Every structure is written in C-alpha cells, then in structure tokens.
C-alpha cells in the first residue's frame, strides 16, 4: 500500500468513527432521557445530558419494570417467540425433508404455495386471518404459535428445502437399509446436519416474531395479553399525560436484550439475515 492510501485510510477511519457515533445517537438520546426526572424530559431539553438536578438514577427503569404490565408483556413476547420459533424449526424442516424426498404433484404444490405465501403482504389476509383465528380460539399467547407456523412456514420451508437438495441421498439410504424407519433417519441423520440452516432460519423467524406488531395486535385478546411492541404502541396511543421517563426506560429495556444477543452472536445473525435475503 502506498503512503498516500495509508493516509487516506486514516482519514476515512476518522470520518467513519464520527458517522458511527452519530448513528448511535438516537439510541443514546433515549438512554440519556431515560435517566432524567420526569419534569426534565421536554422537547426543549431532550438533547441535554442529565445533570445533578435532573439525574433520576434508575428510578424510571424501576417504575417501568414494576408497573404497566411491562414484565408480563416481556414474558408473553419471550414465550411467543420461543414457542413459535421452535415449532417452526421442527415442523417445517420435517415438511421440507418430506417434499424434497417424495416427488409428486401434492408435494410440488405445497412447495410452490409456500414460495407464493412469501410474496403475499400481511394486509391481504389480515381481516380473514383474525376471524379464522377467532373461530379456532387461537387468540392467546399459548397457541398463537400455530398462526406463526402457518404464516411463517413459507420462508422456512424454502430455506430448508434449498439446503436439503444438496444433501446426498446415500447417507439416508444406508441408514434405512440398516433398519432405521423414516422418523429415526430424520432425527438421527438429517436433523444434526441441518444445524447451520436451523440457526439462520431460527434467527430470521425470531427477529420477525419478536418485533411483529400487527399480527399479535389483531389476533391476541388485547384486554388480557400484550406483547412488547403492542405495549409501546399502547403507550404512544393513549391520550392524556404519558409518563415519558418510564416510557423511555421501556424502550431501552426492549433494546437491551436485542443488543446483547446481537453482540454475542453477530456472526450468525448477519449470516442468517443475509441468507434469507440472497435466497429470497
């Protein structure tokens, strides 16, 4: 590398450092305000750092956690995400194996319907999905995962099937000749091989379910259950004096887990998220 390009690289590093700091500013601003006392959070003082008069410590966080059903919503969100993702991973990978190994009109139709469902925007099925869910009683956090399995199946089946086409048949045939039935073959041979794809699909579906707003908002019985995005929207939509401090603290509390998971599994997340894009 020439001297000139080394110097240019240094300048770019400095520029990008400034840009990245600016990039983090919106989140930093919420954090800053979540540490202030209620009267100090106004549109005019939003950009000021908390000082000794306005610093509230972690009061807002304590308030957010102890009131407004925050912990409950957090629990519902976590449960819905975990149950839906596990169900999706197990069921769709089994279906994907079946439709790549058994070739007939029926399995082909399922495959193309799955791809088709990826294109359909949610608004198209919004109203009718809610009434279907209502009539089957799928309106609580314990069984909404069935809806997520149905609506999220497309991408998962597509990604699993794409991987399975590259798995050599001989391994499975050997297992079957040795006396494994298809179920044993699947769980002992195929399932372990799926690990990298499982991680990618799991991350994609988890991000979708955790952040999803409209589906749980319409399907769940709102008077009893709220997920985190619903709670945030509820805060915003409620008229009258909104307590800004606990509100900002709630936003921070929903971002923290995402950021921590991201920092620890960045490699998988970036790989998973882009795998979905490049294939889709």
């Amino acid at each position, binding site marked *: 590398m020439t001297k000139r390009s080394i110097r240019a*690289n*240094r300048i*770019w*590093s400095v520029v*990008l450092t400034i840009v*990245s700091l600016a*990039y983090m500013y*919106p989140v930093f*601003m*919420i954090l800053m*305000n979540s540490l202030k006392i209620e009267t100090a959070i106004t*549109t*005019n003082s939003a950009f000021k750092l908390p000082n000794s008069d306005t610093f509230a410590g972690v009061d807002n966080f304590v308030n957010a956690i102890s009131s407004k059903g925050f912990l409950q919503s957090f629990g519902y969100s976590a449960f819905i995400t975990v149950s839906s993702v596990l169900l999706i991973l197990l*069921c*769709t990978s*089994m*279906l994907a194996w*079946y439709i790549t190994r*058994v*070739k007939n009109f029926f399995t082909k139709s399922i495959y193309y*319907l799955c791809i088709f*469902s990826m*294109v*359909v*925007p*949610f*608004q*198209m*099925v919004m*109203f*009718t999905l809610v*009434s*279907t869910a209502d009539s*089957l009683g799928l309106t609580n956090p314990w069984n909404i995962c*069935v809806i*997520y*399995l*149905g*609506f999220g*199946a497309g991408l998962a*089946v597509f990604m699993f099937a794409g991987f399975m086409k590259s798995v050599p*048949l001989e391994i499975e*045939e050997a297992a079957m000749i040795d006396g494994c039935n*298809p*179920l044993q073959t699947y769980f002992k041979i195929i399932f372990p091989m799926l690990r990298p794809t499982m991680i990618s699909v799991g991350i994609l579906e988890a991000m979708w379910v955790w952040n999803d*707003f409209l589906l749980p908002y319409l399907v769940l019985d709102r008077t009893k259950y709220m997920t985190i*995005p619903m709670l*945030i*929207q509820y805060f*915003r939509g409620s008229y009258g004096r909104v307590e800004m401090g606990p509100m900002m603290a709630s*936003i921070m509390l*929903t*971002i923290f887990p995402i*950021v921590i998971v*991201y920092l620890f599994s*960045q490699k998988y*997340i*970036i790989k998973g*998220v*882009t795998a979905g894009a490049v294939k889709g």
Partner: protein
Amino acid sequence: MEKAIKKYWPIFVLPTLTAFIIGFIVPFAEGLYLSFCKFTTVNKATWVGLGNYVRAFADNTFKYSFWFTAAFAVVATILINILAFAVALLLTRKLKGSHFFRTVFFMPNLIGGIVLGYIWQILLNSLLSLLGRPLLALDAAAGYWGLIILMCWQQIGYMMIIYIAGLQSVPDELLEAATVDGASPWKALWKVRIPMVMPSITICLFLTVTNSFKLFDQNLALTGGEPAHSSEMLALNIYNTFYSRAGAQWKGIGQAKAVIFFLLVVIISLLQLRATRSKEVQQ
C-alpha cells in the same frame, strides 16, 4: 425409500400443512372472495361484484397514499443504495475498525419498526421544536422526510452487508489488471467493480423497493398518517379502511384495496425474478 417415507406423511406433513391452511390458505382464499362482497364479518357477506374495486379506485385517500408510497419508495431506494454501497466500498478497504463500523451500522436493523418509529418521533420532534418548526404530526413534508431518514437509518446496514459480500467476491487480479492497464480508481469502480456486483445491486434494489411498499409499523409509529392522512402509506391506508372508517361498505373496499396492493407487490416480485434471471445468463 420414497415409499417408506410416504407412509409417514401424517407426522412429516400434517402439522405444518394444517397450520398453513389455517394461517394462510383459508384467509387468502376468503380474502379474495370477500373483495367482491359487502361484509362486516366473514359470515355476513353479500356479493357485490366489482363494486368494491370501483370504489377503491375512486377513493382519493387510496390514490394519494399510492403516490405518497411511490415517491417514498423511489427516494428511499436511491438514497439507501448509494449510501450503503459507499459505506461497503470504504469497509472493504481494510480500514482500521471496519468490524466495529459494520457492527454499528447493522444494529438498527434488529430493532422492531414500532420501537424505531417511536425513537425517531421523539428525536425529530425535539429537533423540530428546537428549530421552531411544526411537529411531525402537523407537517406532511416533515413526516415524509422523517420516514425517509428512519428508513435509511434502518436499512443502510442491511444493504451494506449484501454489498460487502458482493465486493469481496470480485477477484483482486481483475482490479490489479485494470490498474496495470492504467485505469484510474474511479474508472476501475465503474468499469470493473460495479458490473461485477450487479447481482447484489439487483437484490438490494428490489429489497428496498418491496420493503418501502410494504412499510407499516414505522409509518404507524412515526406519524400515524398525520396530519389528516397526508403521510399515510398504502399498508396503513388499507388498515385504516378496515378498522377506523364507519360504514358497512368500508370493509369490502378495504379488502379490494388489499388485493390491489397484493397484485402490486406480486408484479414487483416478478420483475425482480426476471431481472435476476437475465443477470445470471450474462455471467
């Protein structure tokens, strides 16, 4: 072997298929049917033929939201892709701290649309009041640019990752050969690197266009369509037609709008398929 697996279909196929029928096939078919009906609930529907579609096209808020969405999609797509490509170019120069920059730029992608919208609402409203200008909910232009800024903030990191992967797959020899032949860095960029990453560019362009068209959560949280529906995008317009307009006819019209919206997204996706296919042939 195929025969043995076939016997196990109730275990392998039935769970997902049942959920798929409940969660997608039935709602989709019903939705298509109901777009030709007047209804308030799914069971109380009377056939009205194409009436809903005629009224949907006659609805000025729908037309407005279409043009608003289109204007948003064009500007957002151009800005996001240029910026993401520029950042990707810089981050493939082996800069110090590349990893850190990549981590930071990608992060907003993981935050949900509702939370993102609210964060930016607080930030932009504070900024606007500092400048002595009307708040987001009172100024359609501010709402439009607010949505653009938010969308850039969220999507640049994602597209950047795809561009980085594309740029890294360009062989070094090719660039060296161009330099030896006397091409300036600028010329090498236009004549070698950009043609080589065309597949990534196609993917990113279509992703940003479809994401812009389908945008809902961010729109709802940032402006909620205010003032007076003038920052309302297609998805939000359909939602409001269903749930916040009084009158028995609106649900049918909403469903007709949803079908039009669906067809629009399908057309964009088919164009994408064609574009990516033709690029594959060339290489």
